[in-house]
């Protein structure tokens, strides 16, 4: 077993054993699930809305080249600048150099998974910039020096008491009490100071609208608007796949994103931002930059079978729906994108060699596919990743031999019957503990009783009795 796989097993085991952790996650996800069901019920026809979102995203992904150039042209017209980053290093370097050149000391950020993907914070901090996460959940995990636990709900794994303890330690002067309201107020006090002292604001983008060159942001705390309007420089860091063709596409994408992610009608703040402050405007940033990140995406785009993974709108619905995620939680994956979409996407973006185990760590229950609001058949992608790993000769030799033996057995019913009988005798004689692969089974479960006869034997006997 490779190190990556063993480490995944170890983390999963640790989380599974942590009963209080599993309880917290289950409670949080159950709460979301109820809200999401209510949110979906508000649509006259949820399935039709999903279908429309699928069509919008699929069309956009299939014409990414055209729409991205149109987006760049429209951003440039209003005085914004687009930087095309082939990988994480180029993206981080661009932002860091820009901050240096403009004499920036302090940076406020609204939530962005792409920034997590490229580890932007650690690059900026290593160059001496002070970086503030301003989404409450992100702020909490930043104080804990942890990666986000969930792509939508970064601090899902923490209770109010955990957060109170953290704030008492990290921002004691701002904490006036430990109710939910008082804890939010404490973070608010700390973050207000950050907003008004930062020279640069960094945001992600939920969508990039090609026809207008605007970015669409969905946030719930208002921090997104503060990050993008108070500092004198606004930098958007986002993936190339976020493009949509038309502003009107948001009429269905925005409510569907909100319903699928959190069960809301719309997120509290739905914002379109188009560039730096114009001559006619009295506020807004002086500079507007959009960093468009590739980082493996165009390679995935070239794969006609799996490119629809790029349709993902990062709503988090598949994480909440996943029984694996519900039991091992977000950190066990040790990837930027967790849960089903992460297990399907990561091997494609960062290589099958190191991440294929994530595609195997699924019972293929298919709940992810059935909740995805843009109709990505995620479970199917997990299967395709597995097939690709096999075809590229990346599976253990023992497994390859085992599968060949399996095929040999199944290609002849007499062989199958004899081997089946022998296997049952072995299990009956030696018990489960002596018999691989039943040993891991027996850690948690009793073995089924081995019947004396197979169906085909019983059927023959039954037939003889009926003829008599």
């Amino acid at each position, binding site marked *: 077993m490779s190190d990556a796989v063993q480490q995944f097993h170890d983390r999963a085991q640790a989380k599974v054993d942590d009963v209080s952790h599993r309880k917290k996650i289950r409670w949080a996800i159950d709460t979301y699930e109820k809200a999401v069901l209510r949110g979906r019920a508000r649509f006259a026809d949820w399935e039709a809305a999903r279908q429309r979102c699928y069509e919008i995203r699929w069309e956009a992904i299939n014409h990414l080249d055209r729409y991205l150039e149109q987006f760049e042209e429209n951003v440039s017209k209003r005085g914004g600048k687009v930087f095309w980053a082939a990988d994480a290093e180029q993206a981080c370097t661009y932002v860091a150099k820009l901050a240096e050149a403009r004499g920036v000391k302090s940076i406020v950020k609204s939530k962005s998974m792409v920034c997590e993907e490229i580890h932007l914070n650690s690059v900026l901090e290593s160059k001496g910039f002070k970086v503030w996460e301003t989404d409450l959940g992100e702020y909490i995990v930043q104080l804990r020096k942890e990666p986000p636990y969930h792509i939508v709900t970064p601090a899902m794994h923490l209770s109010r008491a955990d957060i109170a303890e953290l704030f008492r330690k990290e921002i004691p002067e701002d904490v006036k009490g430990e109710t939910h309201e008082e804890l939010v107020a404490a973070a608010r006090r700390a973050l207000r100071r950050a907003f008004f002292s930062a020279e640069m604001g960094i945001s992600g983008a939920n969508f990039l609208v090609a026809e207008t060159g605007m970015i669409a942001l969905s946030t719930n705390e208002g921090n997104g608007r503060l990050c993008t309007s108070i500092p004198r420089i606004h930098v958007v860091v986002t993936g190339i796949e976020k493009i949509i063709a038309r502003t009107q596409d948001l009429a269905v994408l925005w409510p569907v994103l909100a319903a699928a992610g959190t069960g809301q009608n719309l997120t509290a703040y739905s914002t379109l931002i188009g560039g730096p402050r114009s001559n006619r405007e009295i506020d807004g940033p002086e500079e507007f930059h959009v960093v468009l990140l590739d980082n493996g995406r165009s390679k995935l785009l070239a794969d006609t079978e799996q490119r629809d993974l790029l349709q993902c709108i990062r709503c988090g619905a598949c994480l909440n729906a996943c*029984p694996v995620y519900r039991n091992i939680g977000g950190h066990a994956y040790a990837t930027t994108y967790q849960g089903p979409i992460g297990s399907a996407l990561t091997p494609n973006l960062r290589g099958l060699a190191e991440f294929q185990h994530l595609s195997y760590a699924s019972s293929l229950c298919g709940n992810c596919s*059935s909740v995805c609001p843009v109709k990505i058949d995620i479970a199917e992608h997990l299967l395709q990743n597995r*097939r690709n790993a096999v*075809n590229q000769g990346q599976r253990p030799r023992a497994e390859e031999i085992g*599968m060949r033996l399996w095929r040999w057995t199944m290609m002849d019913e007499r062989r199958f019957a004899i081997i089946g009988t022998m296997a049952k005798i072995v299990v009956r004689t030696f018990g489960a503990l002596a018999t691989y692969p039943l040993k891991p089974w027996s850690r948690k479960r*009793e073995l*089924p009783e081995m019947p004396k006869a*197979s*169906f085909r034997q019983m059927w023959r006997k039954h037939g003889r009795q009926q003829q008599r």
Partner: protein
Amino acid sequence: MTKLVTLFVPCFVDQLTPQVAMDMAAVLQRVGYDLHYPEEQTCCGQPAFNAGFWGEARQVAERFVRVFRSAEMVVCPSGSCTALVRHSYPELLAKTAMQDDALDLGKRVFEFSEFLVDVAGVTDVGACFPRSVTYHDSCHLLRELHIKEQPRKLLRNVRGLNFIEMNASEECCGFGGVFSVKFPEISGAMGDVKADNIVASGAEYITACDPSCLMQIDGILRRREAPIRTIHLSSILANTEGSTVS
């Protein structure tokens, strides 16, 4: 005129839970079908397909199509194996000489409860089972074959049966084939959640349409020494007045 159905008995049912298929056969006969069991059958290919070994799976799937393609109607006591034939064969056998036969066969392979309710038009098979029973929605049955109401209709028409819905009946039991031994920690945790919900239902029996889910659930319940027993839908439906319930 009696009609003929062909029995598709998945490999692990043949070897590990033969009574499930015997009971299915008994019910089908009771509602007026003649039965044919092609002895050449082995496996549909799902273990290799799910493991990513599509080359191996394809050969076994092609063999399956050869064995069953002349059958008019095929009935199977497993949602998962039925779903593989109907749902995944078109992809697995695409661009092979078998692709048309596979597509066609997929339309004639039915899961047992689906066959009874949707094809045979029977919701009362004359069964009697005076126990309280809860039902687990198996994943492929539910999400690929969209079978949810059929088994419930059948259960509600069983004499003496007290049907209890459990919490989160649609959540995976954690079996997932080889997943259960490759990732026993995750599979076991998922099974624990399922078992908690089953026990909380207060039912005496937990039933399902997939023997594989029941094997996982049974293994966990017995390890816990929980007083609740697993039983396949076909065995409930095979039970009639006068036969004893253990």
